[in-house]
């Protein structure tokens, strides 16, 4: 089964313009420093930059050498240094050091800092403190969007997740709102905006301000609907093991900016190969959303077809052969190459997963989601920890347990934590503290404790502030409610018959029929009901902050929205989105006749999520 487009699916806008515009802007900024210059790029920006403006384009605009920005002394002899960074304090400090050491040695250079996508006040404050504010020029490169494919756009801000959800810092809200505004000013305002989550609300409010205070002449053409989704509304889905092909590739090889590096074990050659993964790769496009069990069948069929096509030349005469070579051979060779790559990748994945007893792991995950045989699952996790199988896998299972069971029983929490620390290092008390704060791995609290705490502190502060404090505490002690939600939304399909993975009836296929992702189910329901009617209880269990509005004011002469365009759905995930969710939404789109465009602050998976919260390292 492949997702061939429906004849009636709406047309998607061309996102390649976004790349071109970003590239043009960068070049413009570079040209503000005329003459030869060396460019220092922050590590995180190297891959996105590569997709926007490659080395040759940069060289065309007088960029001499490219360096990675890090804490090493600069060996460049160029007179002009240009730095392309995210607004991180560490990067600004390094740059200040460079400038200051130049001052000491008497070197006279020009320095330009390009902040991407925006400059923070803190960065300028640091420049000022270090005494280099007057020596550098600062610019902003408003590069927001990296189109990873026809229907995926990433803001490449993985730090969003930790900065907002752990530290409560709203620094990226502006950039996200601005990005939304920029996006819709290019492609038209949405007809309706739905959302859930505190950050979603803030982003929406800020975006609305941009629109209201903006030019009235913005195109009144309205296209599609928008759904803004906070990651913390659904933590369970990104923590589940992925079994759709693209998700597996991400889990095993780590896809970066839409491409993946296959090591020599996979390619059976000495070098690593970098493969670009998008809809241009015909083979990939057919299998990316497939459940892994279907992939081998598909690939072998494809291989057979390829063989047949090659074999055609057996009975050919010269003329036919010539024709064959000039027209078909190239395409076949291309397909052959891609096919062999994907077959090797699949084989590698199979080997890895069998070694780690993937089947057993999935069974445990499904039991956790189901709430079935919890004690057995806990023993499995215990053994997983004791055998030191994998630091993040163990942690992932612990978090899944906590989320699905509304926290661990005190005894279990203490014993599992102790075992984890003994197996993987005591420094992980820091990680555990972070996870507790996020609500990902918590101890079940007896009901009274919460209220007692609240009332005690309430007495200590003025009345006005109590409301704010209660908010703070309630966000700290956010309950998971997964089980109740699962029942209400029927996230676990009935297991009477065998689940057909070849023609699946619903989105649960992305988890082998065991679980429909909460995030996608919510989106489905809200779109079906055109709002949150009937979902009030669900929203309450998700800690509220849901909204549904018809965006952009009315106005005389507003063009009638085309029925086509109302089936175009933009979904923006604040805090990250997994490939499994993307596959699920693509499936949903096929099922219901929508076309989903996914915008995310970053692509994520369980490893990335937990890594960002891991403080147990230097």
């Amino acid at each position: 089964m492949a997702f061939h487009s429906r004849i009636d699916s709406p047309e998607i806008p061309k996102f390649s313009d976004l790349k071109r515009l970003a590239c043009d802007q960068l070049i413009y900024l570079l040209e503000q420093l005329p003459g030869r210059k060396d460019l220092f790029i922050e590590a995180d920006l190297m891959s996105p930059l590569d997709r926007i403006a490659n080395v040759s384009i940069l060289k065309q605009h007088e960029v001499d050498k490219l360096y990675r920005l890090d804490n090493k002394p600069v060996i460049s002899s160029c007179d002009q240094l240009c730095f392309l960074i995210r607004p991180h304090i560490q990067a600004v400090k390094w740059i200040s050091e460079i400038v200051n050491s130049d001052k000491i040695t008497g070197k006279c250079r020009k320095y330009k800092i390009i902040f991407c996508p925006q400059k923070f006040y803190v960065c300028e404050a640091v420049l000022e403190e270090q005494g280099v504010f007057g020596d550098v020029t600062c610019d902003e490169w408003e590069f927001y969007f990296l189109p990873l494919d026809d229907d995926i756009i990433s803001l490449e801000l993985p730090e969003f997740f930790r900065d907002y959800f752990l530290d409560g810092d709203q620094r990226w809200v502006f950039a996200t709102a601005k990005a939304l505004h920029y996006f819709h000013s290019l492609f038209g305002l949405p007809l309706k905006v739905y959302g859930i989550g505190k950050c979603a609300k803030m982003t929406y409010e800020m975006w609305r301000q941009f629109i209201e205070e903006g030019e009235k002449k913005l195109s009144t053409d309205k296209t599609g609907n928008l759904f803004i989704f906070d990651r913390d509304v659904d933590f369970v889905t990104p923590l589940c093991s992925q079994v759709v092909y693209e998700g597996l590739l991400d889990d095993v090889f780590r896809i970066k900016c839409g491409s993946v590096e296959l090591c020599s074990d996979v390619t059976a050659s000495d070098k690593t190969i970098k493969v670009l993964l998008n809809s241009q790769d015909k083979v990939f496009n057919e299998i990316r959303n497939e459940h892994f069990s279907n992939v081998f069948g598909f690939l072998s069929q494809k291989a057979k077809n390829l063989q047949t096509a090659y074999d055609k030349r057996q009975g050919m005469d010269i003329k036919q052969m010539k024709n064959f070579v000039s027209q078909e051979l190239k395409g076949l060779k291309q397909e052959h190459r891609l096919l062999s790559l994907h077959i090797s990748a699949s084989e590698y994945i199979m080997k890895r997963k069998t070694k780690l007893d993937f089947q057993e792991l999935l069974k445990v995950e499904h039991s956790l989601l189901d709430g079935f045989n919890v004690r057995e699952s806990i023993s499995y996790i215990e053994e997983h920890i004791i055998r030191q199988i994998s630091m993040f896998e163990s942690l992932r299972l612990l978090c899944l347990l906590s989320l699905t069971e509304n926290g661990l029983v005190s005894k279990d929490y203490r014993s599992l934590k102790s075992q984890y620390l003994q197996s993987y290092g005591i420094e992980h008390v820091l990680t555990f503290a972070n996870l507790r704060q996020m609500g990902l791995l918590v101890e079940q609290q007896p009901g009274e404790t919460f209220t007692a705490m609240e009332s005690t502190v309430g007495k200590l502060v003025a009345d006005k502030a109590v409301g704010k404090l209660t908010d703070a505490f309630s966000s700290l002690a956010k309950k998971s409610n997964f089980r109740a939600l699962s029942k209400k939304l029927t996230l676990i399909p009935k297991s009477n018959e065998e689940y057909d993975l070849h023609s699946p009836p619903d989105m649960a296929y992305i988890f082998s029929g065991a679980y429909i992702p909460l995030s996608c189910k919510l989106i489905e329901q809200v779109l079906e009901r055109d709002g949150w009617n009937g979902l009030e209880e669900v929203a309450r269990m998700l800690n509220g902050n849901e909204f549904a509005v018809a965006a952009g004011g009315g106005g005389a002469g507003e063009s009638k929205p085309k029925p086509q365009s109302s089936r175009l759905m933009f979904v923006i995930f604040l805090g990250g989105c997994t490939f499994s969710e993307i596959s699920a939404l693509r499936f949903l789109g096929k099922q219901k006749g929508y076309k989903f465009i996914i915008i995310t602050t970053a692509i994520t998976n369980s490893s990335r999520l937990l890594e960002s919260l891991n403080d147990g390292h230097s």
Partner: protein
Amino acid sequence: MIRGKGDEEDYWNSSKFKAFTFDDDDEFSQLKESKKAVNSIQTLVDDDDDDDEDDVEKVGWNGEPVGSISLSIKETASRNRMSATDQELGFPKIETTMQNLSLSKQGSNYSLSSLFKGKNKMGNFQMLSECVGEIPSRHFAPELRKPKSQYKTYTLEDFRALRDKMLLLDEAVQLHNGNVITAVLIFLKKTLSKEILFRELESRQVALRHFIHYLKEMEELKLLNELLKFLGRTEEMALMQYREHLNLKDVNKKKEALKSCISLPFSAEDAGFVQDHYTLLERQIIIEANDQHMEKTGQVEVFKKNPRKAAILDMPIITTLYYSCFYHYGESEVST
């Protein structure tokens, strides 16, 4: 400019300001008044010395000169004039939407937008509900091609009264923009004593979170420790100090740091873990020194057959246990 007593007399007795009292119950009108007041102070400042701003030193709460902020606004402004704007690039839609400042819709608030026009580049200002000030003050960024009167600039130094500062902070929080909130906090940190600042932040969760994150990023651990202590978040404080030990490279320094961590106010179970960590590292150092020596001598069978891949330092307990069984099985208990 050092505002002399005379100016203040003029200000208070001027007919422009009626019924401006601090005792007003209605917060809305208070805000309006404060804002008007701020506006006019700005005017006075401007009226007096528009030209030689740079020479005059401004003094903040603690008596320290705070002229740097206004200076930097000017510098940035001139720099903005020199460096390019994004406008010529063909983003007219976006730029002009940013520039079209409309009147406030929900009543008047402080405007931080103009200040941050100085801080941020053209396309990036904070859209705030603009307050209706009659007199334009410092003019800004002429290349924005809008009538100058539409832009108002304020310097943070004008917010001197504690009440004003807190209103400013609350307003910033309302805007949801973390960058602005942090900027205001940096200003408050400079111009308020820490006790006052801590007290005010205690009841403002969003601002507090931003402040803590800021201190962490700037590695101002001493101040952060004091803040956490003040808030009674002693466990967090302990964990933070514990975290510091991870940055130490030298093993013995690490051991000393861990030792000092033991007495910190961890939660009961965490305290036990930290104690274990110290004991473990202590043991590992001894084992490592011993084993390294043995390996070098090349006498011991087990080390020759199975050379060590890595030092035992910093390894988790289970790994250490495995290592000990592997290399030291059958030995009598080492006296440590």
